[in-house]
């Protein structure tokens, strides 16, 4: 029962935290631009407004179900990662699988969203999916190398085990024990968060906002909440993988906040790659970084 409560609270908390972080990031970006920016609660208002629009359209079954896929996929990732180490009630479902399961279940939501975009019939949506998948297949390369290097180095695939192995002080964090793999993973984190210079999926200037082009009203609000959840889940995953996890709630919030600001800041100062440039960059730079640690682990 406690587990169920924990799961519900985790979902709600992650949603709020994700939306709040989104609002903060909009403000931060505005300040970098020299603007005032919206309220930090702006994302909540937007969500509410979208949720309460009185009409909406859909283009078919997959279009209809895509937000469900998206939210389900995001929550699955969220629940597979233990939140606060030592507090076993916050481990949620993480006993059911290891890091490989998390890597693959991340695609669940992506595929769902891609299917919805495809079903919408809008060419831009599909172009964006094509770009997104191409890019995803590229950054997953370096990310999976980094994960394998860390997991093999620590001799466990269980995320819990990976976090526990980092509890011996700040220098035992994987970012210091596996600096190259971490660098690779952190570069892969940028396209994961659709940050510039890798923001080719949503590219508002050429394929107006990509996959959710046709999504309106309540569908869009589901999409946004899915994105917020997924973003939070990825943050927690990265914190667990590289930054020693969290031993209490404060450190979880602080670490995820700081990690969230990294793509926001990078994103604000970079222009965008072309698709093939992005793919090639991701093939070579982060991959070769991550490979260094993989070779180290192998030897």
């Amino acid at each position, binding site marked *: 029962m406690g587990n169920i409560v924990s799961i519900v609270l985790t979902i709600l908390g992650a949603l709020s935290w994700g939306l709040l972080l989104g609002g903060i990031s909009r403000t931060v970006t505005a300040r970098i631009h020299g603007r005032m920016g919206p309220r930090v609660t702006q994302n909540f208002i937007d969500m509410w407004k979208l949720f309460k629009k009185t009409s*909406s*359209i*859909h*283009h*078919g*079954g*997959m279009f*209809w179900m895509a*937000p*469900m*896929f998206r*939210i*389900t996929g995001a929550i*699955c990732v969220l*629940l597979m990662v233990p939140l606060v180490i030592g507090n076993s009630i916050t481990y949620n*479902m993480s*006993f*059911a*699988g*290891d890091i*490989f*399961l998390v890597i*693959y*279940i991340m*695609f*669940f939501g992506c*595929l769902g969203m*891609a*299917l919805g975009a*495809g079903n919408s*019939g*809008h*060419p831009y949506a*599909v*172009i964006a*999916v*094509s770009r997104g*998948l*191409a890019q*995803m*297949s590229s950054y*997953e*390369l370096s990310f*999976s190398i980094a994960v*394998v290097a860390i997991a*093999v180095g620590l001799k*466990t*695939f269980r995320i819990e085990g990976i976090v526990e192995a980092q509890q011996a002080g700040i220098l035992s964090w994987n970012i210091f024990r596996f600096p190259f793999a971490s660098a690779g993973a952190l570069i892969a984190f940028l396209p994961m968060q659709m940050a510039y210079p890798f923001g080719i999926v949503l590219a508002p200037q050429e394929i107006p906002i990509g996959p959710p*082009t*046709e999504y309106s*009203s*309540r*569908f869009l609000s589901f999409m946004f909440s899915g994105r917020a959840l997924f973003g939070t889940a990825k943050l927690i995953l990265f914190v667990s993988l590289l930054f020693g996890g969290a031993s209490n709630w404060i450190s979880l919030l602080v670490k995820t906040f700081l990690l969230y600001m990294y793509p926001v800041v990078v994103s604000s100062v970079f222009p965008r790659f*072309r*698709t*093939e440039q992005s*793919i*090639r960059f991701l093939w070579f730079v982060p991959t070769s970084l991550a490979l260094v640690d*993989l070779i180290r*682990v192998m030897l």
Partner: protein
Amino acid sequence: MVKALAIFLPLLGAFINAWLPGKSPKASRVVSYLMLTAGLIAVIMLSIQLGAWNLRDLSDSVILSTGVGSPPLSINLEITAGGTLAAIVMYAATIFSLHRFALTTPKSQPLILALLTASLGLLFATDIFNSFVFLEIGSIVTIGLTAACKCGSRWEAAIKAALVSGLVTILYLLAVAVLYRSTGMLTLAALGNVSGASAVIVAILLLTVIVTEIKAFPLTGWGLDFYQGTSSIVAGLYSATWSLAVLLWAAKVLPLLPIGNPIIYAWIGAAGLVFSQLAGLRASSSGRIMGYSTSAYASLLLVAAGTTTGAFYTQTVIVLMIFSSIAKFSLFMLGNPEKKDQWSGFGTLLFLVPILLLAGIPPLPIFWAKFAFLAHLASGFPVIFYAVLAGLLLEAVYLFRFWSARSEKTGEKSAKRPSAVAAVLLMLLASVWITRMSWGALDFSGSIIESAGLRNIFHGLFAIGTLLCLPGVFNRIGREKSYWFWLLISGAALTILPAAGNGLTFYLLWEISAFAAVIGVSKGTAASKGTFWYAVFASLSGYLLLGGILLSKGSFAMAGVPAVLITIAALVKMGQFGTHLWNVRTYPAAPGTLPAFLSGTSSKAAVLLLVAVAVNSSSASLPWGRVIAWIGALTALGGAILAALAPDYKKMLAHASVSQLGYILMGLGLASILGWTAAIYHTIHHLIFKMALFLGAAGVLYRTGTTEFNNLGGLVKKMPWTFAFTLISVISFASIPPLAGFGSKWLLYNGLIEQGWLPVLIVGMFASVVAFLYSFRLLHGVFLGQLSPKNAHAKEAPLPLLIPQALLAMAIMVLGFKPTILLNFLVPVLEKIGLSGLAPVIQGDMVLTTMGTWNAWMVGLMVMGLFGFAFVFYWISGHKPKYVGQLDIGFAGEMPPSADEVHYSNNFFRPYQRALSFLPKIHAQKIFSGVNKTFNMLGDGVRALFTGDGRTYLAHSLIFLLLLFVFLNGGM
């Protein structure tokens, strides 16, 4: 009395015919038929008397003496048991071709009967000079028949035959003179008595004569020109009577020649086989192709003469020569493809059986002879064995090209060719007969794979895979022809395959399965190319398998070269690493549900083969497991990228199939329990999802008539169930939890990490991510996006295609949510084999390895629970969106002009392709066309020998003679 009748009735008929007035063709036909039928009966009686039908001992004989003296002044014939079988064929061929001669050249009846007489005489002759007489009669009649036929190049063909026969006369008589001078005798047995310098002279003269007459390389040229130039009827009769007689006569003489070590025949034959078949690759006219095939069998005769003796020699030669002659007879009787004969249905089968016979496909008779013969070669003459294998493979290539070029010219009119029908029936009867006799050599005890659990898995897979393809066989489109029979045969052979107890049985079932599928593929639309590639690669893997099995003496406990050969055979069958070309060409061309069978079920035979090799080896591992795993990994990656860029639904699935098979290889290469668990798991999983996908593709093709992405899209509205099943399969093969695909990847990665094969792991993981590219492309290109107006009439796929898909989708769900059902069965089975590594621990729904955990049931519950919750939330929140069509999109205030213009499908992953552009473009196609070009060049080089100038052929014979002289003198 019977003996005499059997031989001389045709002669009598010829004389009567010659004296009959020319204006009564009917009477002469009656006479001919009477004489021939009576003769045929006599020969059959003789053969029964001599016990020829058991094919065990063919050397029994009776002597037929004529006249008062002894040979050479009179004619004495020794009627052997084997010879009577050939005589039956000759008689039958003459009878069945008579009506066609009667149609075209009614006056040629005496010639035909004379040809038969000469053939029979030569077949049974015991004397050198008698043989000379028959040889001359045969040549003269052949030239006469050619000159009498109605085709453009007859004079040229005749003059070349005449030139060669003139030279042969001279050389032969010289040999006769020397022999007589040396021994004072002219019987064939006298050849053994000659010694010293005379022996060399006699040997080289007669060998040259024989090689020229049987048209073995390099003295083939005149035969090629003759077969090409003469009419197909003459060529058919010629090959079934005179050519057969010459071959068997040569078989009789060759062992008697005073040549020292007969291995020289085998060398000439083996080299000739390779070179002539190289040149054969370039042949295009049917006559010439048959000529090259004749040359191949003549070379085989030489090899047999050089390497075997006694009853085995007789048996091999009789079966090989008789049945190749029948095959050529029926092919010639079917006419020239240049004349654009059209046929369909039974006609194509008529054409196919002889081709398969010539290529030595089981259970046709030549297969048995070739198998025994090659086994003999493998045991003692490895180099010759390899050369013969290579030559036979080349022969198969051009024969299948001939067939596939032919099968394209199908039409409405069915040819009525009783002669060919009779020949094909004869071949089929003979194959039943010979198979029955060889039945004892087969072994269905399953002793190749000792583990009954593994065997049962594969039995079940093959049976289920075949059964699920069967309901949809009648949902064919347009020009596709009925293929269910071949699907059934192929599936049945596969289903029995795991029970094979020895190499012969395994190879037999393997080839039956492969070539039944080849025939099935030929029933598709525009299938000629697909058929050709499939046939060629099936032959390649078949011959590699054969080589491996024979080199290890029929057992699967092997190492070294045989194991490598067999592994390569399996890789070719799986389409790995460059050989994917055949998959990519075959699957799109195959009709209806056949691609599902090929990709889902048939390719698993290769997995079975690898398993068989591994479980019989000492350490339960494949040779060079690491290399195999790398091949698997690279193929998985390359196949995935190619699949993402493929422009056609079925082509994409073919690439994807190759890619997914790569994972099985990675698992098998590991040789640990985890790896094998992953491999077998993925084998089952691949069968399930690939069949579902291909059945879905069959449905789409059936309803829309196309599989090109450019013409598809938006079908989800029209075919929702097909889409749903395809979606489940796609999610599964993209290895997204909670469906079945994740399990195989998880087990595989655990296995790879356990063994420390991290680079392989990385490539494999990368490939699995690239799989997302094509999985989305597949769903979008066919089902999502805009519905093209071309497909507005499409509707849901028919039930026979849908129900199997539904079952498979259910299997995916079950396997995904409760993989422990399978693992609980599989892991104990694999633990007994003796693999290295630790087995995964299964606790309830939890699967544990040393490093990872996986609870599929909990994951499944979580995903389904969340999904269900979201679903309910949708409903109760009162959200009622309005459904609008795909064209109602925000399109800058405009209305999309047409669905086709807003459907993004062409060059879908263009940016990816651009990003890949730094790679040199290594197309497997280019490599293979390079190979093709090389072979063509070699073939051109070889066939430059055959200039077409008759005198060149004479020069070839003389040079051959001189070389023999130098060689044998040097040797002595």
